[in-house]
């Protein structure tokens, strides 16, 4: 046993000798040209340079947390070099200070990039705009996440990726992704603080208009079409948290909620949700960016999916078919714009107007317990007369079909007998196919309709929601 042991030690010594000699002969492969610390330092310098490089600042799509109902927020932020570190100036939209107004810091506040498992962008000096999202003293109960959490946002971010135009950040505590995109401007040369104020004010005003167009004045949900063609409605965008539901299912009870941040470039979903499609498939929208296409009719993702305003024909029909079972009234209906008529309708309309100079006219696509109808209201200052007949809408090959039905109001025949032009007006719509398009991209508040093959038979309808 002892002899075996000695042999073993002897052999081991020789083996060790061999390897140790061998190891001296090998050159270590130089995987990195710099030390880890140098690489970190370089990353820091690279990130600083990128942040300082944008004279007009950055658009920040910030998501405080996936938890609760705390919404994401678009900030404008300008980084200024200050010796070895820098200062940051934030601006945010603020409805409370009026239309197109925004809040901006009284003065820039210090920030830094530090090393902590990688380069970390830290807003380590209190900023009354940005830190409102992380201050535990904030106790807006509608956003309550529990005592001492406030709105639950991060102010320290691991720098994930830096390019000259984009910086991707990950919240250190919450792990939510935030992206900075270079403020898009055609300005060249030095941007003074006055000029910066101008640019930012315009951005905020434009963003408010865009939010109005996309969400606040849009009676219909946006539509997301996945790369494989499955369609989803994005409901309740004006709450900054979409209720996402497949078009096939179209039941808000099964909606997935997804926070988003809208900027002038497009929108970004918070980095978590996947959404169940109608065939049980899941699509992942979390963390995806949808950028406006050139004519700003769609927001397009790099995976081939896109967001638009949806199918205007379907929107027109859905609005009328979403009827209250008790009152028979639709959730929203469509008023014809009397100034929008093409020549076919205008000729008739003018004759009616000439016969009733003391009246106001309102033609309205709506619904009652008999179905979808075209309603005419003849109004004076003291009375309103209503007359209607059924005019059922349906979709056919992407076009809107309007079909006249038998039902009509009891006063219809009498009124038409006295004023045949009213009957001609009602008759003009039925039995035709119409092309439909929103007056403004994404927004189904006003639709322009034109009979297929007859540009003279055209009109606009305004949603009353």
């Amino acid at each position, binding site marked *: 046993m002892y002899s075996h042991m000695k042999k073993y030690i002897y052999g081991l010594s*020789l083996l060790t*000798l061999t390897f*140790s000699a061998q190891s001296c002969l090998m050159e270590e492969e130089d995987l990195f040209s710099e030390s*880890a610390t140098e690489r970190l330092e370089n990353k820091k310098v690279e990130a600083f340079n990128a942040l300082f490089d944008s004279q007009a600042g950055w658009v920040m799509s910030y998501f405080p947390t996936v938890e609760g109902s705390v919404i994401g927020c678009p900030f404008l932020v300008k980084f200024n070099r200050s010796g070895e570190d820098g200062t940051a100036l934030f601006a945010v939209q603020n409805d409370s200070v009026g239309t197109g107004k925004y809040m901006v810091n009284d003065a820039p506040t210090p920030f830094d990039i530090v090393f902590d498992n990688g380069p970390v962008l830290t807003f*380590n*000096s209190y900023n009354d705009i940005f830190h409102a999202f*992380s*201050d535990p003293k904030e106790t807006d109960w509608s956003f309550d996440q529990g005592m*001492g959490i406030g709105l639950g946002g991060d102010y320290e971010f691991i720098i994930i990726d830096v390019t000259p135009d984009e910086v991707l950040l990950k919240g250190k505590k919450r792990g939510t992704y935030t992206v900075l995109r270079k403020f898009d401007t055609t300005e060249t040369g030095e941007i003074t603080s006055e000029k910066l104020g101008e640019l930012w004010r315009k951005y905020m005003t434009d963003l408010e208009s865009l939010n109005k167009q996309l969400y606040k004045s849009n009676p219909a949900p946006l539509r997301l079409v996945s790369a494989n063609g499955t369609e989803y409605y994005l409901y309740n965008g004006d709450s900054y948290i979409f209720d996402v539901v497949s078009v096939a299912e179209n039941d808000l009870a099964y909606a997935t909620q997804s926070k988003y941040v809208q900027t002038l470039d497009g929108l970004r979903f918070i980095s978590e949700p996947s959404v169940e499609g109608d065939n049980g498939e899941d699509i992942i929208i979390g963390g995806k960016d949808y950028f406006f296409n050139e004519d700003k009719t769609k927001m397009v993702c790099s995976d081939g999916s896109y967001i638009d305003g949806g199918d205007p024909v379907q929107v027109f029909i859905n609005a009328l078919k979403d009827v209250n079972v008790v009152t028979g009234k639709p959730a929203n209906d469509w008023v014809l714009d009397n100034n929008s008529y093409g020549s076919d309708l205008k000729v008739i309309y003018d004759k009616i107007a000439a016969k009733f100079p003391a009246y106001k006219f309102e033609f309205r696509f709506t619904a009652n317990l008999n179905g979808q109808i075209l309603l005419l209201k003849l109004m004076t200052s003291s009375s309103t007369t209503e007359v209607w007949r059924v005019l059922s809408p349906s979709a056919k090959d992407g076009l809107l079909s309007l079909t006249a039905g038998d039902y009509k109001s009891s006063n219809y025949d009498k009124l038409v007998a006295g004023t045949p032009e009213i009957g001609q007006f009602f008759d003009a719509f039925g039995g035709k196919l119409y092309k439909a398009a929103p007056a403004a991209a994404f927004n189904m508040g006003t639709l322009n309709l034109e009979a297929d093959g007859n540009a003279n038979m055209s009109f606009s309808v305004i949603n009353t929601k």
Partner: protein
Amino acid sequence: MKKNILAAFALLMSLTGFVSCSDDELGPTIFPVLSDELDPNSSTYPLDRFLRENYLDPYNMRFDYRMSDTEADMNYNLVPASYDNSIKMAVLIKYLWYDVYDQVIKNAVSSEVPNADKFFLKRYGPKMIMLVGSPAYNASTGTKVQGLAESGVKISLFDVNSLDINDIELMNENFFRVMHHEFSHVLNQNVAFSDDFKETSSGLYDPMNWQDKQNEVVRSQGFITPYASSEYSEDFVETIAYYVVSTDEQWASFMDEASKDYEEIEVSAVRPDSTTPSEYEVAKSDGTFIRIISTVEDVQGNPATHKILRVAVQREGSEQLSAPLKDENGNLIYRNDIDNVDGKAIIEQKLSEVKEYLYSGFGIDLDALRHEVLSRTYLTDDNGDFVIDNGNYINRLTYPIKSDPTKTLIDSLVYQVEQYKVNN
């Protein structure tokens, strides 16, 4: 034998081989070479320079106002202190804390007080002060942390963004009482206090429910604050901290509270009929009422019952709302048989013990320290007496300074930082 020699040779060679491998020339450090020079172009240069010249150089103390959550408890949700309030805290901590100790120690050393140590602050002073903008909330207990002392080295001050120098009481409560509290912990970690103090209120400490107790009630039991009633180490430092920032009148008021006993009773807030007062109205008007502690509401959200705190007095009958008895001078007759503890005597005993501890351990006269603190906080006349206006002490920080009446004391303190602003 030969085999042994061969084996030894092989081992030697293998060792040599290892040694030879480590014979590479050392390159430059892999860490960035940092300069300790401050950059005058930095936006924070004025404060950084002030901190270096007033804390780092004289006391080897790092004053961290730009928060890093690696220095904080990640379980809390915190935000950094604002730069402006960091400046104010930096100058105030020097003025109301470091300079105070410096002065008291200097006097003690020159008077050759035993154990007075001219290196006191260098030796025992914190090595790091960290400012945090927000409080640290404990959701489970509904409390918030105002300060922390860690390992006798670091003091964290919270809620700096709420600093309001116009409100001395709040400023002391949030910061300077906290500083004295936490620093006393640091001293305790270096020199233990006597077992006698620990025994003084033994059996009365309540680490679980202290936060639900009223100031008056715990004072009647011999604790200066509810937090002091949580455990003896907190009791010790709270006694120091409260004494050192309280005026004579405030301390006398605490002792007056401590000399009485208290009752918590439930009363109906509802009137039996429109002309008969509610129990609450009766209790509130009999001269013993202090405050409502809690309220139970009915389904409409109206108060149904209140739990109230009142001074315990002798009453005409056994009913809780019987009228209070009065002596021949018309004064209430206080009861002292509720907790059977002479709270005032016990707090005064504890105060005596903490004074002895500071004096014998560190040569610090607590009364001298207190006078230095108060005379820097409140306005004094040429004789060093406090100026009283309508019964109130005058905030010295917001009062104009003699040398330039257009500036207040806080202006002149802040200027100690602003003087370093570089005009670009």
